């Protein structure tokens, strides 16, 4: 499968990564290369093989339903480019 320049532009936009127009052909080519490699991997017959999700037999860690965190709005907002009255302030977004 090959990725054309339009698809590369679209994927970049969806990921909110700024890619200069002149860099798009190279990006499309790189992505195509990755997908070609994936296609090659797909040739391996894995019928009946359970997907491996971890190299060691681990169980998903759980937490108890207890409030142990939060209560530090000032820290949450500390790096925000703009914050007012306890809120993040962002350019207006309305449907």
């Amino acid at each position, binding site marked *: 499968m090959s990725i054309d320049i339009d698809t590369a532009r679209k994927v970049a936009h969806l990921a909110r990564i700024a890619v200069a127009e002149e860099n798009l052909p190279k990006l499309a080519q790189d992505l195509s290369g990755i997908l070609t490699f994936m296609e090659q991997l797909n040739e391996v017959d894995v019928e009946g093989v359970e997907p491996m999700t971890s190299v060691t037999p681990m169980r998903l860690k*759980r*937490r108890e339903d207890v409030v142990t*965190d*939060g209560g530090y709005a000032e820290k949450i907002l500390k790096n925000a480019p*703009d914050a007012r*009255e306890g809120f*993040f302030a962002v350019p207006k*977004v309305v449907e």
Partner: protein
Amino acid sequence: MLDHLSYKTPEPKVIAGAKADWELVIGMEVHAQVSSNAKLFSGASTGFGAEPNSHVAFVDAAMPGMLPVINEFCIAQAVKTGLGLKAAINLRSAFDRKNYFYPDLPQGYQISQLYHPIVGEGEILVDMGPGVARKVRIERIHLEQDAGKSIHDMDPTMSFVDLNRTGVALMEIVSRPDIRGPEEAAAYVVKLRQILRYLGTCDGNMQNGNLRCDVNVSVCRPGQYEKYQETQDFSHLGTRCELKNMNSMRFIQAAIDYEARRQIAILEDGGVVVQETRLYDPDKNETRSMRSKEEAHDYRYFPCPDLLPLEIEQGWVDGIAAAMPELPDEKKARFVDALGLSEYDASVLTAEVENADYFEAVVAVCDDGKLAANWVINELFGRLKKDGAEIDASPMSPAQLGGIITLIKSGDISGKIAKDLFEIVYTEGGDPAEIVTARGMKQVTDLGAIEAAVDKIIAESPAEVEKAKANPKLVGWFVGQVIKASGGKANPAAVKEIVAQKLGI
């Protein structure tokens, strides 16, 4: 459990277009906020109405390097919900990332369960009136994170974002397209909400947005839906549109009705319905396209690399199943079968779990289901409504109401006095039996006293005595006089017997 109550399937709603009749096909996606103390993947509080961004952990704010750790209780709540909808529980499920950008979603993706949801197929019996119900199939329930809240009206050029809700656990409950009209869609939400509230897995508060609905609507010609049900092949149905985020039963119905008519008009004009997401505007009563959503629909799902698959044990599920509360359908059937209530009264009493609990507590005291149902529905609900109060705020306890009913049953007070007593206990409080004694409200069953009263009336009313001897029906006049003279306290049955005996009729 529903064997005792058999149901007829309702007729689908038919809308007459300009050229032909059309039927509706509706599927629902309900987002129900899980009742829990802490969020799905962090230890921050889920409490509503706190100061902005005060219920936010670094995980929720997507600070670099923070990792999600799942709240075990939220898993249990989803399993419990699945069991309540008679659904298959998947012992192995997994989390995926749904990628999109929005200011109230700091991660840039929502952790959800697209490929392997925790709950599989189930069903809901949607009541459409006594003896009529629609069985709606549930396709799946998955766990996911809620987004934050944007406020647009605090500043002319800025939107304000509060992340308190970010990361709270949601259950997305997806139905099959088995719903056949706007009323059924609303009834489906009512029933689902009722079950969730009985289970205690979601508080069902629609005003706060704890229960929100997306509705998929399409229209088809009569006969097509039956072909779909036979084959499960969607090509027999029309193209659907998704109506987003409705949080009132009235809006759900109005939006579906508008949307169906819009689609019918397009089709009868020879046009094509375009599959899209639409927003209902209650002010204008119309739906309009959310074009901005279309591009964002490219969610590029992939398995969440931060979370291992969620594996649960059958024994753990069995433990949750063993502790399940009685559900609305079962409770209703039991009220009808064991307590002798009408299906209508049973429906009224089981609609809200708090009402059912109150009623059962009254029955526990007075041991009479029918009398308790009458008094709870007619007197108590009526009185609470007058005060604009909910059952939780009832000044009368089940023990007090049960006490009043016990006094009626034992013949200590008459039905009329009981209503006076009800008002006294409701407004002043106190023990019904003590009030009756203290205020001399006891029904007089002392035969001597009644006899004396009867003798007095007979002696004072020779003309009526003659009439009554000619026409025994007039005995009622004497009974009325005696009860009136007793201040309503004489036992009517005893009075009637004595009057008849004295008059020799």
